[in-house]
């Protein structure tokens, strides 16, 4: 087992290596966190980043586990309105963190906090983020940013006004395989990208078990009428935009980054066609996002079939990439070795049927080639650990990662406008007032 110092060195080396491999040239000039690692901006020696963790449900629990393993991070406060989650977090902290049931109290009492990590239900992100920024804390907030585009805009503006770091949890921007893919795409491996298809398919009702209890004992009953709404908040419109904000925003962020823009027009349809259990958000969504250069992103997500899983398929005249699978294909693969061509032709000459009449067309069946790996190295982390490392690094160096904030913002806005397109049944155009003017 590695000791702390070795672990730190290994992790830092890995991040530096990622920065070098994935962003040796073009990408490094575009991604602030890669620049930061490649340039080895000096961190403050010996000081840990004191973090307050708000929201310690399933995602928050995972973030906490990662933070406990990051030597430069120290979780000194944990906050959750749900007592069982708070108790579990306090146990994990082994007495090193103070517990709170209200984030404002945490901000008031813990003046020495450097940063706040937020993994609460979507509808609370904006309030907690803005409060934390105004209290002078650097913020990591899980995606999506907010339930309403205007709230996401307020979050960005508050970050700019306070001059503080606001990082949104889009871990694919830290994943070496994705970074390598971005680099290859930027270098023209696929030619100009002409279409992106992305999907996320699951087969499950997306429900959590609802424990017995009175929600009024710990939460505002005006906000949550019962435990079902409190626990399964993802299924109700008062708290969430369902598949769009919980899943699609990740893939829309990837599409936005690859296309170097945000969608200008969105159309779509969604429905509840399988899980008719009282939920209010769609259990299947289908959208087309149009980008300024004429490229479309075709997106769908469903919860009644998992055969195809999740994928982002990026296509251009020279090739195709599947980013989740980590594979790529060329439209003009190199010819097989001569000897194999010879054997193949001899086999065809001997065993093929003699055609009586030529086929009038050849069916456009999919290419069965196994593809080439985008990155040879296998990465166990889905990027979450790396993005938290990146956040802690930024908190120590004073980096702002504004480019990542822009990514998080437009991914959220794209997801929310997709929701609006489905709910209204109309083509939605990106409103001018939602376009960021004060940040690049």
């Amino acid at each position: 087992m590695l000791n702390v110092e070795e672990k730190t060195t290994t992790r830092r080396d890995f991040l530096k290596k990622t920065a070098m491999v994935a962003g040796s040239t073009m990408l490094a000039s575009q991604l602030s966190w890669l620049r930061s690692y490649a340039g080895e901006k000096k961190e403050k020696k010996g000081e840990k980043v004191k973090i307050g963790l708000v929201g310690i449900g399933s995602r928050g629990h995972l973030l906490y586990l990662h933070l406990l393993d990051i030597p430069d991070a120290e979780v000194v406060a944990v906050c959750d309105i749900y007592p069982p989650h708070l108790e579990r977090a306090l146990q994990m902290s082994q007495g090193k963190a103070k517990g709170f049931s209200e984030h404002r109290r945490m901000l008031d009492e813990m003046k020495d906090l450097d940063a706040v990590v937020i993994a609460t239900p979507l509808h609370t992100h904006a309030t907690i983020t803005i409060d934390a920024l105004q209290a002078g804390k650097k913020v990591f907030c899980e995606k999506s940013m907010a339930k309403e585009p205007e709230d996401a805009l307020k979050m960005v503006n508050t970050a700019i006004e306070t001059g503080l770091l606001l990082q949104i949890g889009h871990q694919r921007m830290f994943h070496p395989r994705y970074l390598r893919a971005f680099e290859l795409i930027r270098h023209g491996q696929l030619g100009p990208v002409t279409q992106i298809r992305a999907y996320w398919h699951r087969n499950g009702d997306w429900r959590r078990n609802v424990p017995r209890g009175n929600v009024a004992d710990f939460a505002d009953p005006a906000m949550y009428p019962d435990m079902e709404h409190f626990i399964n908040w993802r299924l109700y419109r008062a708290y969430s935009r369902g598949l769009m904000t919980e899943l699609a925003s990740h893939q829309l962020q990837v599409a936005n980054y690859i296309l170097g823009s945000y969608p200008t027009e969105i159309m779509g349809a969604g429905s509840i066609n399988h899980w008719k259990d009282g939920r209010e958000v769609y259990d299947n969504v289908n959208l087309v996002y149009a980008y300024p250069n004429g490229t479309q992103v075709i997106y769908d997500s469903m919860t009644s079939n998992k055969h195809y899983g999740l994928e982002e398929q990026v296509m251009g005249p020279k090739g195709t990439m599947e980013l989740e699978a980590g594979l790529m294909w060329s439209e003009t693969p190199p010819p097989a070795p001569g000897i194999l061509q010879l054997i193949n032709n001899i086999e065809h000459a001997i065993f093929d049927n003699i055609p009586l009449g030529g086929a009038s067309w050849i069916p456009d069946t999919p290419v069965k080639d196994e593809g080439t790996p985008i990155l040879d190295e296998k990465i166990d982390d889905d990027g979450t650990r790396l993005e938290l490392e990146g956040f802690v690094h930024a908190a120590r160096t004073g980096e702002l990662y504004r480019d990542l904030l822009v990514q998080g913002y437009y991914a959220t806005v794209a997801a929310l406008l997709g929701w609006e397109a489905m709910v209204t049944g109309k083509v939605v155009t990106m409103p001018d007032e939602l376009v960021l003017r004060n940040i690049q």
Partner: protein
Amino acid sequence: MKDTVITAYAKKRELKFYALSLLLAFLLNILSIMIYHTSWQELYTQLGTVFELSLVIYLLLVVIRVVVVLVARALGKDLCKKARQAGPQE
């Protein structure tokens, strides 16, 4: 079960047949590079395929040789039988 003896002559003969197969496979590789205009690097990058092909050619030769021997034996027996039936020649 009887012991089987493989003579030195038989071993040499089989080695010669395999060497011939290997040579044929190698020549086929050169020929295919010329026909399909692929890289001359395939002379060494495709050595694995050449060895596989040489084994296939060797097995084909074994089959052909077995057939030839069987046919020759059958024809030989038939000729002897006809000779016996014809009786002594003047």
